[in-house]
Structures are given as structure tokens and as C-alpha cells.
């Protein structure tokens, strides 16, 4: 079973839940930017949550199916159509051999996920099928899809049982909702003045066009650092620290903030001031260019509760699918 890429879209890659255990050599996890949408897409078609899906950014692909299949599209609304007929989002649908699925511009959100029963079958590298394009690792030949690529699909149990599976509307994220992105402040936030920390949390930040899988660059007010004699080895600029590891989701402030995402640089010498909590990294991944981001500082216990709440939603969705 395979599907053929007729049009690749703006940036379409094979992703899964990511590769772990190699961060210390500089290997970021890669994987789905919106892991929630990825997991739900898999659940809808009966895959395990770590099966590979296609992540489409801003503008999706045209894909021709060689055989009958069961698919689900979740995440950003990119108006998918099957031979010209609208395809419902967050629902498992059947595709007949020879049909073409066309995924268009995002009208809400930034990234959509296409799961297919059986999963996209590319070789695993370091236990993951995720694409990390910087060094050409994983996924389909380590790169974004191009026209003419033919993707294999893993063996599925009879996917037809899943057709019609859908996520209840109150479990679907609202990507137009621009509620605060929650962060746990810390890391090197002692480098910011108290006024600047407050301003950081009060500001409406704007997502720049340089918002990709490596990081989201934001623009907004200037950041003010506490004056100090720079410690040995840090470098001369007040934003410089002795090079350290960057958590996924951490916000570094060279001058303007950069939030590191799934293809993060894993370390460097700019002060990091806090970290976006894991469920809100999924939400952030759906903020488009020129969208607005504001931050809310929460405690570690609140962060752990927010994570549990997201897990409960996922469990509820899985339960509702039987």
C-alpha cells in the first residue's frame, strides 16, 4: 500500500512522537509540533499514538492513494478535500483507491496532521520515524516531501471499523482561541530586571515569519538585563551566559525571544528565562505568523496539573472512540 505525492505543499514532513535519549549529542527530538493533534489523528484510525503521520504546515499536500485506505485529518483547518468533496476534520474517513486528497491553506491554526491506518512506513532511525531536516535524518530521506515521492503505508488491521470515528466538538482545540501560553519561569531568569520580567509577561508578542520547527521568534518590547560584570567564559553581551543546555519549550532572549520547538538547537549561550509547558507547546505550534502570543507565569504544580488535564482529554477521546 502506498500513496503518491502529487503536490508537496509548503512544508510536509513525516513525524511521530520523536526520538529521545540523544539530546546530549545535540540531537533534538523532532516529532510532531502539535503532539496532541498527532496522537488524536492516530487514535481515530486505530494506530498506536507513535505511528508516523504527515505534518503539513500552512499549506498542505495533494496525495493520490494507490489502494483503499482509512485516514483522519486533525489540527489546523486546511480544508481537506477528497476528489473535490469536503473531508470532515477530526474524523476517520475512508478513501478509495485512485482518489486524491488535497489539503489547502490553513484558515485556523498552522499545522495539520494526516494519519493513515497502518501509519506512514519509513525506516526508523534511533527508534523514531520523525524527520529532522537540518542533518537529513529520519522521515522520508531526511527531508520535506517533494512531488513524485511515493510513501509506503504499514499494514493495518481492517481499518473499516474505524470509519466514522470522530472527536466530540468539546474535545477539539479552538485554534482561534488566543489564550495565554503558560510558562514556568526560571532557568536564567535572574538575568532580567524585575521590571523586564513583568513587561515580558504583560506584553503581547507577535510571531515573526521566522517561526519554524526549530523555534518561534517573537517581537515585542525590549528586554532589560540586570547589570553585572560578565562571568568568565560567558561572552561580552549582557544576554550571554556560559553555554548551557536548552530545554524544549525554553525561551531564550538574545534580544527578542525565541521559543525552542521540536527541532531545537539543544544548547547555546543566550540566557533562557522560562519554559513553555508541554501542553502549551502544542497550542503554540498552531499560532501562525503574525499571530499574537502572551505568556502567563504558572507554578510547577499548576504545570503538572495542566499536563494531567491534557492527558485526561486524550484518554476521554480514546474512550469515546471505543
Amino acid at each position, binding site marked *: 500500500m502506498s500513496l503518491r505525492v502529487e503536490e508537496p505543499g509548503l512544508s510536509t514532513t513525516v513525524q511521530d512522537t520523536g526520538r*529521545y*535519549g*540523544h*539530546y*546530549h*549529542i*545535540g*540531537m533534538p527530538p523532532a516529532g510532531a509540533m502539535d503532539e496532541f493533534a498527532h496522537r488524536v489523528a492516530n487514535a481515530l484510525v486505530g494506530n498506536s499514538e507513535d505511528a508516523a503521520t504527515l505534518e503539513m504546515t500552512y499549506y498542505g499536500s495533494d496525495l493520490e492513494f494507490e489502494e483503499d485506505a482509512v485516514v483522519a485529518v486533525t489540527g489546523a483547518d486546511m480544508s481537506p478535500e477528497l476528489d473535490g468533496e469536503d473531508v470532515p476534520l477530526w474524523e476517520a474517513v475512508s478513501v478509495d483507491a485512485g482518489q486524491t486528497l488535497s489539503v489547502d491553506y490553513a484558515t485556523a491554526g498552522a499545522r495539520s496532521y494526516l494519519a493513515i491506518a497502518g501509519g506512514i512506513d519509513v525506516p526508523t532511525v534511533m527508534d523514531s520515524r520523525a524527520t529532522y531536516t*537540518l*542533518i*537529513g*535524518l529520519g522521515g522520508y530521506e*531526511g527531508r520535506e516531501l517533494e512531488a513524485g515521492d511515493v510513501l509506503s503505508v504499514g499494514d493495518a488491521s481492517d481499518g473499516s471499523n474505524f470509519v466514522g470515528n470522530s472527536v466530540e466538538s468539546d474535545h477539539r482545540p479552538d485554534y482561534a482561541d488566543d489564550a495565554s501560553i503558560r*510558562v*514556568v519561569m*526560571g*532557568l*536564567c531568569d535572574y538575568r532580567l530586571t524585575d521590571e523586564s520580567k513583568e513587561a515580558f509577561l504583560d506584553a503581547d508578542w507577535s510571531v515573526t515569519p521566522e517561526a519554524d520547527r526549530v523555534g518561534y521568534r517573537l517581537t515585542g518590547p525590549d528586554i532589560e538585563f540586570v547589570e553585572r560584570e560578565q*562571568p*568568565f*567564559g*560567558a*561572552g*561580552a*553581551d549582557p544576554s*550571554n*551566559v*556560559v*553555554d*548551557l*543546555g*536548552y*530545554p*524544549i*519549550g*525554553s525561551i531564550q532572549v*538574545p534580544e527578542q525571544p525565541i521559543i525552542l520547538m521540536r527541532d531545537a*538547537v*539543544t*544548547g*547555546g*549561550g543566550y540566557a533562557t528565562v522560562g*519554559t*513553555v*509547558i*508541554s501542553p502549551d507547546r502544542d497550542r503554540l505550534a498552531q499560532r501562525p505568523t503574525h499571530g499574537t502570543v502572551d505568556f502567563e507565569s504558572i507554578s*510547577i504544580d499548576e*504545570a*503538572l496539573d*495542566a*499536563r494531567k488535564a491534557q*492527558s485526561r482529554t486524550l484518554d476521554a477521546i480514546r474512550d469515546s472512540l471505543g
Partner: protein
Amino acid sequence: MSEDVIERRSLPEPRYTYGGDDHVFVELDEAMSFDANFKAMAITQQVRRRDIDGVVEVCPANASYLLRFDPDRLHPDALIETLEEIAADIDLTDYSWDARVVEIPVLYDDPWTHEVMMDFRDNHQDPESTDLEYSARINGYDSAEAFIEAHSSQPQMVTMMGFVPGLPWMFQMVPADRQIEVPKYVQPRTNTPSRAIGYGGAFSVVYPVQGAGGYQLFGRTPVEVLDVEQSLSGFEESMVYLNPGDIVTFRRIDRDEYDRIRNAVENDSYEYTTGDLAFEPDEFFADPYGYNERVVEEVA
């Protein structure tokens, strides 16, 4: 060279902080020192050895370390408690390791990094100088030549890996007053040649792949530090060549030798020059220059 010892630094209380709901970051010191680095190494080695359930990533850094954990299996405060326990038991006088010594040949002032740095003079502290000339001057050397000698004549220890896969941060094994320190570019470059030798803060790096970078550019090596396909000899075990605790000697080469070695790398007939050394911090601290002679002999 009378005061030629590595002065020990007493470290402040470590700072434990959360990185969202799934990371713990521990800063051992705001400044770089061998004490801070060796402590980060020793603690993270213990963390690995204990194989703590729920710990997903263990990343030593220059003067800090970072852990990623699964909050569904481990509470961050329980993890921090364990880390405090481990730190209390660490005694650096007991700490030593089998270090690999690796020679990295370098063509200083090479044409490729020169061309790129000229494209980015607008982002530089001193647009009229090359990065080498600027770095030589602010570190008190009479010439780029004398500066290259200082950079290449004493070995460097790999103190951290990251940024991108395979990139080593290296800290020169000399007393603090001999350490080279340079600023990073005012704005990072959007381009850096692969295998460029950079310097920022107190660290040398080798850029594994072409891409962004903000460090001063000194030269280029013909040898690889990353081989994703793992087809080159030396990369059988891992796609990255260097690891924290390795000791690197930069050997200055000319263009002919650069081309010869590059050719050999491309034909997969290049063999890294390496040696092994049981690294004893105390011996190194007491007589770094004497110790470094032994290090260099390993690959001579």
C-alpha cells in the same frame, strides 16, 4: 611561567530550576571553570549509572546540566532531591576518567571561512579586521600569527556537546589568565561553512554542518565531526565523533595538507590520530603545561 597552575574554584550552591513540566536545569556556576565542568560530568555520570526511572535525557553542559524527565513517572521535586543527594557524594579528588586524545588538523585563516566572514562584517564588532586579527588584538597578542600559536599549541577539553548534533564545545587546558576570551557576533550569521572552527566566550567549536552561527571564525578542519550515514571510519559506534571528556589537539596544517586530508576523508581512507590517557584532574591542575606535553605526545 611561574604561576602555571590551574587555580581551583570553589563553586557556589547549585541552583536547581524547572524547565517547564518536563525538565530540570541545574546551574553549578555562572562562570566557566574546570571545577564546574568536571562536577557536571561527575554528577551526570552518576545519574546515568543510577538509571533513575523516568529520566529521559541526561545532558552535561559546560558549567551546568540539564535533565528531561517524564512527569507521569517522576515528580521533579523527587528528582531534585536525588540530584542533591548525588551532588553531596561527589568528591572531585576521586574523579578521573579514561580520556581519548584526538588530533584535529586545522587550516587557520582558510579561504572558505574568510569569504563567509567578509559577507557578515556588518554584524561584527570590528568590521575592519578579520575575526583572527580582532581576537588576537583584544586578547593582547601582537599578531594573528602569535594568536594562532596560542590557540593551537595547548590542547582543549570537550566540555559539552550540542547546539546541533556533533558540535563540540572545547575549553583550552591552560590557566585562567591564559584563556582566550572573545565575544560572539553582535547578530548571529545566517551562514557558516561546515567544519569551521569558531570561538565564542571561552570556547572553541567545530561546526558540523553548514548553517547559522555566532562565533568568531578562525579556520576550517578537513575532518568530519558528524557522519549521519555512519559510513566513515571512526563513526561505527555513533554518528558524532567527539564526546565530553575527550581531549582535542589542534594541529596547524597548510593548504596542501588540508587538501590531502580532505581527499582522504572523501575516499574514506582517513584515520583519525588518537591516543588514550587516564585523565587525572589533580595532576593536570598542579602542572597543566607539563601535563599537556604528555597529552600531545599521545598523538605525536
